[in-house]
């Protein structure tokens, strides 16, 4: 089979996985099912990053989103429900107005994205990006890099302070 055609078919499979599992996240009644569908969305987006030649970002996506944020969300689901409450229903409301609004937003976005005359600088070859990203972070983006580290420290201390039980 033609290699190019094969890669296109795999791309469409990943696209269907991403959008389909995101739809499960949004429309599923069960919170646990939403959380596990989010796993497939994050994994599919990581695969799309590989298609875009962003190998470092794909690994970061797997480590931080799947390994960190998703586990954190699952903790959030588990800790805020009683364990015997097995169904863990998430209520939905304003369904129809939201659906209409979202369809309008989506069609507007797609309409203008496809009409716009994007620059055509050509594609970047799929070369390893880790060294280039590291050099850029240490040279051109050193200030945002340091600010981000302080920001993470502040956010984590703040999170720990918020959930701490008040001592009597």
């Amino acid at each position: 089979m033609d290699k190019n055609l094969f890669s296109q078919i795999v791309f469409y499979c990943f696209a269907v996985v991403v959008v389909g599992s995101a739809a499960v996240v949004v429309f599923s009644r069960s919170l646990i099912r939403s959380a596990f569908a989010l796993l497939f969305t994050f994994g599919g987006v990581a695969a799309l990053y590989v298609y875009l030649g962003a190998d470092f970002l794909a690994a970061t996506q797997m480590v931080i989103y799947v390994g960190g944020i998703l586990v954190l969300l699952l903790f959030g689901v588990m800790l805020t429900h009683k364990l015997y409450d097995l169904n863990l229903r998430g209520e939905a409301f304003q369904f129809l107005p939201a659906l209409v609004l979202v369809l309008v937003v989506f069609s507007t976005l797609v309409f203008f994205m496809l009409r716009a005359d994007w620059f055509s600088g050509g594609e970047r070859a799929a070369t390893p990006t880790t060294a280039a990203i590291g050099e850029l972070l240490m040279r051109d983006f050193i200030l945002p890099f340091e600010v981000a580290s302080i920001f993470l420290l502040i956010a984590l201390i703040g999170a720990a302070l918020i959930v701490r039980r008040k001592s009597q």
Partner: protein
Amino acid sequence: MIGLGHYLIISAALFSLGIMCVLTRKNAVNVLMGIELILNSANLNLVAFSKFSAGNIEGQIFSIFIIVVAAAEAAVALAIVLAMYRLIKSVNLDRADTLKG
């Protein structure tokens, strides 16, 4: 051939689904999941533009900073959700109306 438009449409779909999740859900954790979908769609856009703009890798740097902010946001937001659960024994956003006069 897979072009820029494919990625833009996928990211627009992710963004719309995230907005839908934020608008229709009452559970605070579920709303957070919608926000993560929106952040992922923004990331996908940035990386796609980075690929199709001939050698610019800055889009991926922006994407890394968005991931940093998303991680911090998830930690703080879940802390707030836990504190809210302790206070009103519920994560239903309609019940969190303590400021209402």
